[in-house]
């Protein structure tokens, strides 16, 4: 019998040894803000910040040339490391950007003597070049590809960092000159993104791919530690001293007067000592953690909408929660839609003109069959914003009074269309619907199948293609293996150009145009507007392009989700997850009652 107890003793010893390893969070009293995110980011190398989660953190650790004003809506550009907005030549092809003097990278062993050095214009040039170096495995090249003179050639010539690029150069230590191949008014927006964050060459050479886990930047926070459940950042005490200006940041007393932001006036951000971001993908755990006060902010999971809202129109928080939390309901900067694979000749483009016409009718029948109201009610608690076409509510080009036919369900019309074009249950093509392996996506598929069944589509001809990861799904639809592509788009910058390019022919799969829609007229208009800034003329053309898409029925589109944010009353901030994203963290403040002692 003593042998059994000896076994137990061995296990207990193992256990005690194991619990000696703990996650070391600061011991001193700190003003710590705990934020929750619904996914963990991947690499924190700015060149690899394709997800909103990585971008959210990276802009707190690194500097970008520009950001958006904290409180202004619609979003307005604001210099960050740059001193002013760019000086643009008359032809729109040459931009000159001055950067602040006396801004330093954080101390790190990568630097000589371990002391962070001053940021120079050449660091920005270097950081953009990295996206065109195959060794970096960067994800942001598409933003500048074919747009900056000489940058693509630099890549084909071997990505030698010591080789100068005519269109991207540091004139001196504090001035950058960019020469474009054609006007690109959205360029400044790209310099607000984590992709364009400025990294020191010394750190890249020191850490290589490990830079993703060892950020060396000049942002308002310094990286402390990270694991699969959270990231911890400490205030960068050496962050440049720029006083907070409430009016300049776009403060609106009528809508933001209750957020406690007035006390920030004239103070120097960041205002908190420590920023902890918890990665909680499970909705129930996120809600429980927020309810228990472990995190101070939550993007409310859809399943909790019912418990949180007392009414959906207007969106109103339950009184007992309104007493405890600040609340914001905001549309997501993007939309969800289902593309139809136009490269699939059974449903998309077909060289036979008759079949081409019949396929067009089939696609439009599918669009008519879709019940957006039910979809919104079931998956978005009825507070998503359904809109016709590809210009979502977030864009200034959005037309609130547009014809709603494209999103109105019309079962009879769909049946008629099928019948008139010779479609019946025998000859309708088999459809595959791509999803990743989640319960919600399977439910989305089943709902779509039920919609199509009602217009006479045999259910056995509609089958799901289930993928273990988004990467596998992306590969499959990029290779034309999926008929209906359930997808979404998060806008990169607040300009409808970013969604119009989703149906531009040359961007066909594996590009962002996953339907491989290719309308010569649409393409011509897109190219004609590519150098245009926002204007009534561009709006008119964009709406015309929107109509072309709806006429051709390459997509069942679309819905913009409404996000609900809750945060503690004593945390003074206006959270954002769109274009401002992680930039708001530097402006977060807390009253003394919330200062946590750990």
């Amino acid at each position, binding site marked *: 019998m003593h042998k059994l107890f000896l076994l137990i003793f061995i296990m207990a010893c193992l256990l005690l040894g194991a619990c000696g390893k703990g996650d070391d969070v600061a011991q001193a009293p700190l003003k710590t803000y705990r934020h929750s995110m619904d996914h963990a980011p991947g690499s924190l190398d700015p060149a690899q910040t*394709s997800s909103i989660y990585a971008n959210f953190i990276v802009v707190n650790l690194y500097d970008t040339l520009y950001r958006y004003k904290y409180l202004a809506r619609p979003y307005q550009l604001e210099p960050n490391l740059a001193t002013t907005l760019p000086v643009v030549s008359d032809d729109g092809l040459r931009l000159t950007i001055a950067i602040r003097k006396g801004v330093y990278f954080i101390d790190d062993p990568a630097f000589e003597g371990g002391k962070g050095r001053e940021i120079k214009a050449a660091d920005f040039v270097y950081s953009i070049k990295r996206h065109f170096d195959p060794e970096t495995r960067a994800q942001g090249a598409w933003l500048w590809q074919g747009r900056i003179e000489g940058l693509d050639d630099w890549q084909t010539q071997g990505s030698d960092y010591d080789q100068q690029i005519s269109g991207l150069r540091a004139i001196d230590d504090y001035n950058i000159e960019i020469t474009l191949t054609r006007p690109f008014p959205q360029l400044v927006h790209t310099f607000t993104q984590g992709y364009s964050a400025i990294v020191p060459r010394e750190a890249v050479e020191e850490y290589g791919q490990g830079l993703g886990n060892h950020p060396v930047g000049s942002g308002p926070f310094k990286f402390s530690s990270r694991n699969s459940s959270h990231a911890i950042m400490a205030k960068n005490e050496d962050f440049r001293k720029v006083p907070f200006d409430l009016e300049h940041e776009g403060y609106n007393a009528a809508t933001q007067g209750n957020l406690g932001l007035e006390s920030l006036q004239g103070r120097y951000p960041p205002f908190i000592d420590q920023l902890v971001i918890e990665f909680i993908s499970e909705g129930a755990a996120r809600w429980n953690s927020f309810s*228990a006060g472990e995190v101070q902010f939550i993007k409310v999971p859809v399943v909790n909408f019912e418990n949180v809202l007392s009414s959906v129109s207007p969106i109103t928080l339950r009184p007992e929660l309104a007493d405890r939390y600040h609340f914001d309901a905001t549309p997501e900067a993007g939309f969800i839609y289902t593309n139809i694979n136009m490269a699939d000749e059974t449903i998309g483009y077909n060289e036979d003109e008759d079949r081409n016409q019949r396929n067009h009718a089939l696609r439009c029948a599918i669009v008519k069959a879709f019940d957006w109201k039910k979809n919104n009610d079931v998956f978005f608690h009825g507070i998503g914003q359904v809109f016709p076409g590809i210009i979502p509510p977030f864009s200034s080009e959005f037309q609130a009074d547009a014809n709603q036919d494209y999103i109105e369900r019309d079962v009879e019309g769909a049946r008629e269309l099928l019948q008139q074009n010779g479609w019946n249950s025998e000859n309708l093509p088999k459809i595959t619907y791509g999803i990743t392996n989640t319960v919600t996506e399977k439910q989305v598929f089943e709902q779509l199948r039920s919609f199509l069944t009602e217009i006479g589509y045999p259910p056995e001809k509609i089958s799901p293609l289930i993928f273990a990861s988004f990467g596998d799904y992306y590969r499959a639809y990029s290779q034309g293996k999926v008929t209906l592509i359930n997808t979404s788009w998060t806008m990169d910058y607040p300009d409808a150009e970013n969604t119009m390019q989703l149906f531009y022919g040359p961007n066909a799969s594996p590009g962002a145009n996953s339907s491989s829609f290719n309308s010569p007229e649409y393409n011509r208009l897109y190219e004609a507007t590519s150098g245009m800034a926002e204007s009534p003329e561009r709006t008119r053309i964009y709406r015309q392009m929107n109509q072309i898409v709806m006429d051709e029925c390459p997509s069942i589109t679309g819905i913009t989700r409404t996000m609900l944010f809750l945060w503690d009353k004593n945390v003074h901030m206006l959270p954002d997850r769109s274009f401002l994203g992680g930039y708001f963290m530097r402006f977060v403040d807390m009253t003394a009652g919330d200062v946590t002692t750990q």
Partner: protein
Amino acid sequence: MTRRLLYGIPLMLGVTLVSFMLMVYFGPDQTYELLGKNPTAQQITEVRHSLGYDRSFVVRYVGYLKEVVTLNFGLSASSGESVTDILKRTLPVSLALILPGFVLGNLLGLGFGMLTAWYRGGWLDKWVMTASVVGMSVSFLVIIIVLQVLLCTPYGLNMFPVRGWQVHDIGSWLYYVSVPTLALVLVTLGYNTRFYRAVMVEEIERDHIRTARIYGASPFSIMFRHVLKNSLVPILTRVMYSIPFVVVSGSLLLESYFGIPGVGLVTFNAITSGDQPVLKAVVSLTGILFVLVMLVTDIFYKWVDPRMLRS
């Protein structure tokens, strides 16, 4: 011992080959996770090349074996962190999380198994078996969420944290591990009780136990000195062979819902994102762990049942 170790080599080769084929060669393709928007064909080729996907099966498998032998799996494709560092950081956390529930679940299961075997057919047996079936029927997820609400939020007792792992000493460890342990015990107790009961019942019906009863040996003496001792081989088998699963994957749901940065969560993330360096490391270590468990179990068998030494 040496012979056993030598037996382990083809086993490891088999495990690595099968796992390489399933998880790496035919597993998630990370190319498209790593591409930016609007990628060109050249960019796709470059990413595939940098991931080594354009190399032959044999070359990739040999490279994988080399990594296993040197225990150097490079950097995580997702975060850029050294895989060795990830494992060093996460394995102790998973052990500290799982071991109490694992030990308690087995000890309680053993206790209930002995009780129900002794009182077989009685009301205690019926009640415990019914409770076991109920316990086995309730989803682990439901147990976790209910316990979180009851013990960790203001809707319940609010005594423990919903999430986190800031362990510095025994006190903080107990604070963070209690609810996950309770969840693990609740979910495993039914299975354990039924298994151990079956083992005990079989042993209790043997002739020498009946003889001991006739001679008037006490229930304690019969159960602990004879029944338990003679049942140690199946018990050890169950416990020991659970260890690799417990260490690597058993903690997945707990880690995910309680925000505990252990190896289960890392593995899950690696599977969904196709982070092959991490996957390769975890799969290989699981294989190595299995071989080690086999060796240790063999030693334990001979220890608890000397007849095996002679055979």
